[in-house]
Every structure is written in C-alpha cells, then in structure tokens.
C-alpha cells in the first residue's frame, strides 16, 4: 500500500515537473522567436555526430557478438548434408555481411558528412541510368550465385534416399514424439488413425493395422456404442436424467461412432495376413537411437495438430501434418560421444524439438536423440528401450 502511494506521488511530481519544463521551453521559444522547423546548427551537428557514434557502437557490438556468440552458437553440423548447409551458410554470410557493413556504413557516413551546411548548395542529381544499371546488375549477379548454390544444396537434401536408408517413423502428438523403427524388413506396417486407441485391453497408440488390432478396435467400439445405447435407453425410460445438451451430444456421438465403426469394418476386407507381416517386426521407442554413418529416412505423422520435427544439430527439420505423411532424410556422422568431445561438454545430447506451435506445452515437446555405433545400438535394444508394436511376437 505504502509502495503504491509513493509510486503515485512520484508520478504526480514527474507530471508537474514536465508541465513546468514545457512551459519554460515554450516561453524561451517565444522570446527567441525560434520555430520548431528552424535548423539549429548546433543540434543538427549533434545529430550528425550521433550518426557516427551510433555506427561505431552498432558495428562494435555486432562484431563483438559475432566473436562472442558466432562460433559458440550451434556446434558443427552432425550430419552429412548438414556440412553442406554450413558451408552454404558461410558463403551466404560473407555476401550478406558485406552488404550489411557496407550499406550501413555508407548510410551513416553520408548522413554525417552531408549534414546541413548553410554554405553548401546541394547537388541537383535526379537520375543517372548508368549508376542505376550498376546496382541492378550487381545484386542480380550476386543473387544468381546464391540461387544456384542454394538450389544445388536443396536438391541434394530433398533428393531420393539411397536404397539402404533405414526407415523410421516419427509420430507426433500433444506433447511428445514416438519413434517407430521398421525392423528387419525395413518396411513400416500400415497405420490408420481410426485404430488409434489407449484402451487397456489392446492399446494401439500409433494406430498400426493388423487383423488383430482391427478386431480389438471393433470390440472396443462395440462396447462403447452399446454402453451409449444403454444410456439412451435408460434416459428414455426415465432412469437417467441428462441435460438437453448432453442428451443431444450423446445421440450425435453414438451415430458418429457407428459410422466410424462401419469404416473400420470396411478395413477388415482391405487388409490380409500379408499386412500383418509388415508390422510384425516394427518396434517403438521413446528416444531415438541412430547409427553413425547410416542414412535414415524419416516418415512423419501427427495425431492431432501440426508439429514440426526439428533436429538443430543435424540441420534438419520437417513438419508433421495430421492426415499426411511427410519425409525427411539425413545421415548422422558424429556419435554422441564424439560430439561431447567436440563441444567440450560431457553432458551434451542431441535433441529433437517440436518447432511448430502445438498447444500450451509446446516448449516441453521433445525427444532425446542418441547417435552411436552398431554395437551400441544392439546393446540399446537389449536394454529394453524398445517396445514391439505387435504383442504376440514377444
């Protein structure tokens, strides 16, 4: 309370002080017959001086930050294409920083040098086709280089993966990722969002299609639908009382579930035993283990909203879009241990972050990524870090 009173008093005093100052200012302007638009040489020169001081401070702090943070920001790219990206980044930085320093320097130096001088007559210079041609052609040339180099790298990054690329699925949901490895056959089992369930009897968080999963899903839907019909019947017999809204919602929901059930029934005829084989060797994990120098092809899916799988250390990113499959490939080239040495940080870990706003806990959505050798990978599996998607295989 006292604090607020003091703040209030201070504000009032400041207001009074400002009012008095402005009156003094108005009076002196009037006495000296000074107009706001008049050029006060002294003030004009102060501003000109400020231009140079600003330039020095701006460049000074820029260079300081480049030195202090420029190299320490992200460690060296840990993927094959990432090395190309970093190289391209550096080329672009050279061009961009040259323009940045050059143009800003010219701007502020001109502002300083050509500050108002009553003795000088400005140079009437409305246009010069040659000059304008020069600064159309030079940027065009520089941009041509940037575009060509950029597209070459882009095509490399987005090109087809090699045949021995290991296929891994990344499944995103609010607010975590799940990795699904395609197993020995290097083929992912089919999946459908209608089969996704956390039902304790037969959980299927990724909606993997197997005959068994479809049957269990039908059982679950049947039991839910039956329960709802019972509720409706109970309401009609006046044994249960719902609000009008709840009652309507219940009826529309049961209709919806029946329609979804029909679609699931249709699935039964579309898939045969051969689809089960694809899924049989798939396994999931809550952290991503990658083998050094092995190319990976990631297939992204999302359960609810758009997420983005962002691997800053591998210079890789791709959105996970509900109802679509997006793809991303890269080859890790340094193991976690090697990277710990490079960064001089024994606690360093690779990371996969969500980089598309996806809800309140967006900033908590991530997954640990480990890069190791083949042996370490096998050990990681033995340690029980993975779960088979088809329970019967165990």
């Amino acid at each position, binding site marked *: 309370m006292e604090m607020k009173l003091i703040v209030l008093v201070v504000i009032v005093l400041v207001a009074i002080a400002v009012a008095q100052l402005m009156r003094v200012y108005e009076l002196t302007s009037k006495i000296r017959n000074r107009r706001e638009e008049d050029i006060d040489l002294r003030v004009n020169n102060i501003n000109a001086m400020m231009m140079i001081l600003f330039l020095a401070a701006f460049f000074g702090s820029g260079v300081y930050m480049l030195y202090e943070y420029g190299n320490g920001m992200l460690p060296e790219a840990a993927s094959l294409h990432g090395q190309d990206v970093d190289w391209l980044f550096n080329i672009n930085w050279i061009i961009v920083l040259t323009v940045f320093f050059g143009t800003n320097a010219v701007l502020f130096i001109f502002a300083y040098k050509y500050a108002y001088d009553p003795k000088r007559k400005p140079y009437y210079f409305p*246009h010069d086709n040659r000059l304008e041609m020069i600064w159309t052609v030079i940027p065009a040339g520089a941009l041509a280089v940037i575009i060509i180099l950029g597209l070459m790298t882009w095509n490399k990054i987005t090109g087809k993966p090699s045949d021995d690329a290991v296929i891994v699925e990344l499944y995103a949901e609010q607010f975590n990722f799940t990795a699904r490895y395609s197993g020995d056959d290097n083929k992912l089992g089919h999946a459908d969002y209608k089969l996704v369930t956390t039902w304790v009897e037969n959980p299927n968080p990724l909606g993997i299609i197997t005959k068994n999963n479809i049957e269990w899903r039908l059982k679950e839907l049947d039991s839910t639908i039956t329960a709802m019909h019972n509720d409706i019947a109970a309401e009609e017999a006046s044994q249960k009382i719902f609000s009008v809204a709840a009652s309507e919602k219940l009826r529309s929901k049961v209709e919806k579930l029946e329609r979804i059930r029909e679609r699931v029934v249709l699935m039964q005829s579309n898939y045969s035993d051969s689809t089960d084989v694809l899924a049989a060797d798939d396994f999931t994990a809550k952290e991503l283990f990658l083998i050094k120098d092995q190319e990976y092809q990631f297939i992204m899916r999302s359960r609810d909203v758009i997420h983005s799988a962002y691997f800053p250390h591998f210079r890789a990113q791709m959105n996970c879009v509900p109802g679509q499959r997006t793809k991303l490939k890269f080859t890790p080239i340094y193991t976690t241990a090697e990277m710990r040495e490079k960064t001089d940080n024994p606690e360093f870990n690779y990371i996969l972050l969500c980089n598309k706003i996806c809800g309140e806990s*967006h900033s908590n959505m991530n997954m640990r990524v480990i890069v190791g050798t083949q042996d370490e990978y096998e050990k990681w599996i033995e340690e029980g870090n993975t779960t088979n998607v088809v329970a019967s295989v165990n």
Partner: protein
Amino acid sequence: MSAAAHTDHGHHHKESFITKYIFSQDHKMIGKQFLVTAIFMACVAVILSILFRIQLGWPGESSGVLSFFLGDTWAPNGILHRGMYLGLVTIHGTIMVFFVLTGGLSGTFSNLLIPLQCGARDMASGLLNMISYWLFFISSVLMLYSLFIETGPASAGWTIYPPLSVYEETIQGSGAGMTLWLLSMTIFVASSLLGSLNYIVTVLNLRTKGMKMTRLPLTIWAFFVTAVLGVLSFPVLVSCVVLLLMDRTLGTSFYVNDAIVGSEILEQSGGSPILFEHLFWFLGHPEVYIVLLPALGLTSEIVANNSRKPIFGYRAMIGSILAIGFLSFIVWGHHMFITGMNPFLGGVFVFTTLLIAIPSAVKAFNYLTTLWKGNIRFTPAMLFSIGLVSSFVTGGITGIILADSALDIQVHDTYFVVAHFHVVMGLSAIFGMFAGVYHWFPKMYGRMMNSKLGMVHFWLTFISAYGVFFPMHFVGIGGAPRRYYDYSVYEGFDSNQYGMMVDLNVIISVFAVIAAISQLIFLFNFFYSIRRGQVATQNPWKGNSLEWTTPVEHVHGNWPGAIPEVHRWPYDYSKPGMEEDFVLQTVPVKDGEEEH
C-alpha cells in the same frame, strides 16, 4: 467548374460536433481517427510484448507487473500462465501487423495524403471512407474484447494454423477467443477493402489538372500499389477465414484430415492443413509489402525534402514499387519450405523470392544516393527515415538467408525469423509511421511537434530497437524455436547453448522495456502538441507537393479557392537556376527550363 463554385463548397456545410469529429466524411479527419486508434492499439500491443518479454527474460520468476496486468487467473503468483503466454504472442502479432501497420499506416496516411497530394477535394466516396473507419473501429474493439474473455484470447499464433485453431480441446484459446479473432479479422478485411477501393479510384480519377501519373509523389505511388495489393490479396484471407469458421462450427473438413483431438476421433477426412497455409500466405506475403510500401513511400518524400535534393531515380523507384508489388504475389511458398511441399515447387519459390531483393536493393541504393551531396536537416522525421533505411537493409539481407530453402530448414520458425521480420517489416514500417507523423503533423493538427523531444525519442527508440532485435538473430541461429515459453529444454541437452539463450534473452528484454518506455516521450509529445504545440506555418518543411499549398486551418474541400494546377514533378529541390531551394508543383515551368 468555376472558382466561385469551389469557394462555396468550402463553406457550405455547417457541421455539428458529431459530423465533424465522430461520423466525419472528411478524409483528413478520418486519417486522424485511424491514427489515434492505431496509436491506442499499438500501446496495447507493446504492453503485451513487455509481458511476454518479462517471462522470456526472467523465466518462471514472479513479477509484480505480470500480476498487475493479468491478475491471478493468468499470472498466478506473478508467474505467467502458459496458455496466456501464447495468447499474448498471438494478439501482439495480430494487432501489430493488421491494426497498427496495415490499418494504422495505410489508413492514416493514404487518407490524409492521397487527396491532398493528388489535388482532390476529398476521397472519391466520403461515405465508404467513413464506413471503412468504423468497421476498423469495430474490429479493433472485438480484438481487444477477446483479451478479456474467460477462456482467453486466440492463442494459436497470429498465423492460426489449423487444426490447432479449430478445436478448443487442443488449446484453450481456440474457443471463444478464436471465434472473436476470426470475426474481428473478417470485419477488418471489409474495412481494408473499402479503404483500398477508395484509394485506387481517387488516385486514378481525381488527380488535378496537370498531375500526370509520372508527376505523382512517391508516397502516392506507394499507397496506390499498396491498395492494389490489398484488394487482390485480402479477399483470399476472408475466404481462408470463412472456411476455418465453417470447420469450427459446421463440421466441414476443409483443413482437417484424419485427426484425433483430445481423446475423440474425428470423422473429418480429406481436407488439408496445408491448404490453409497456402491461402493464408497468399495474403500473408503481400501483406508484408502492404505494411512496408507505405513506409517506403513516406520515407522517399521525407528523405528528398530533408536532403534538399530530388529523390534519386524517380522512375526507378516507381518501377521497383511495381516490381515488388508484382513479385509479392508469387513468393508465398517460402513460408512453407518444410511443410512437405514438393521440393521442386520449393525451388521455384526460392527463385521468385530472391528476385525481390533486386528492386529492394535498387530502392536502398537510391536512398543512399539521395543523401549523397545533399544538405541534410535532421528533423525527427528525417532521423526516423534514416533509421528506416538502416533497418530495411539490415532486415532485408537476413531475408536472403531465409529465402534460401536449404538454409531455411535450419532457421525456420526460430528466433532468426522473428528477428528478420521484426527488423525488416516491424521496425521499417513503424519508423516510417513515426517519420510520417512528425512530418505531416502540421498538416493534421495545424501545429508543430516538439523537435527536441522527437530527437530524443528517435535515438532511444533506434538504439533499443536494435538492442532488442540484433541479439535475436544469434538466439535464432543457436536453434531457439519461437513461441517457446522458456528454453529450459536446452538445459539438459546442450548447456552451452542454454547459457547463451539465457544471457541474450535478458539483454533483449531489458532493451524491450527501454524501447517501450521511450514511447511515452512520443505519446506525450503527440498529445501535448495537438493542444499546445507551436502553431504551424503553411509550408514549414519547404516542401514541393500540393498539400503544402492548402491553408493551415482545415477546410472541407481542402482548398478554399480553385484546386491548383500542377506543372512539374514534386522533387525540384535545389534546382539550379531557381531562387529558392524548393519549387512548388504549382509553379509553371519557365521558358527553357528542363523538366527533370
């Protein structure tokens, strides 16, 4: 029409308080209404940004400021609620982009300057113009109202990507807050379209005698192209928004496909969230230039006037405005390089996007050449214009990095993007707006703003603005995603980076607070000068264009007598053979004088 008829026109109307100040159809009053509304909206948006900067600078620390503004619901114990953090970010972006830099900038200066600089009595349709303002007002009220509802404002980011923006179950703000957001934006677009159509018609049809298109001030060219961009792109936003409303309320599936929300499985199938992105960015990218071009137009005028030199390369400037306007329609895909869009298409967008750098470079170099061998008066308007050129260059070049799809993968949706668009579009546009206000204040209110306060305002704003956004580039390249509540995630993975993010975020937040406080100087100067500023003379800056031939006191119809006839372009500053260092456009060309 005879001169006498015009004289009558000026004194005919006996206006009541309501028709003069509230439901005015006079373009000068409507311009001022837009300006004051935009200033109010800007204050709100700045406060919102300070609130989330407090969280980012000092994450998880209890803050009295947060409890004061947000209360126990949204800042329990002075710690920002996660959902509200996203709400603040969303509404800050929306207000700044649409209400301040589109409505505020175009609305104020197109309305004020198009009739005055073209030599027209008023806009083509005063009534539409008035409706345009009042729709803007209603949409502003709706947007502000959404901050006060129980479930919080829209919080899916200002880009409101579905399905996050469709279902309340995915984020609280996608309930009533999002509905208000969509309604507000629909009304805003209607306002913008009425305004733009008016601007286009006025520029094309109501120029005074002798005012050829090639004698128009660059401000008018910029407003004209901006209005064309608005008319062509805003309707796409409406369709995009209406489809989203239908997805939300009627259960259609334009943007939803095979999703599970909460624990409920959705029937919607066959739509695509990516379709939304295409529609949104088809407006979204021209929008950047809708924001930027008016600022560049104002700057062209101010730089020439205060260097006492003609703008360099008048025709090249017009050409680059047109080129930027055209190209802005075929680059939207650069916002979507990593959405899974066909990589070949991505390549095409890389090419078109980088082409924009050419006309932009021409503009920047032409400004520099205008300064060269000039005689620069550092008025507050000129200072802000120089600031604009600097931020336009500094922000523009990081665009080259972002437009390069191979590099965009790495910095997409990080703070590097945030830094880029704040510098190139936010700072440039707001500097242009400040410059415009300082320069045309005498035309708006018949008084002068205090120039010393203006200078202090400029230097504090300029330095702290760079203080905010320059370090942000480094945070972004360091891999900090935007719209993160805090960066604690890095703590356990890469402590080096975490350290850098913590350090820089404190610096950014401190500068943000300084920048916000500096704006109090402007607010004081603005409102003080309206009432007590020095009474202006007719042509205080010794300008050439037509608005400086109107009387200081506003008259309905702008000129008490006949509309002046125009004989030359507006940039005859320091022309050899002339007595004064400026020549009004109304001065006939002398025998043997070359017309630039």
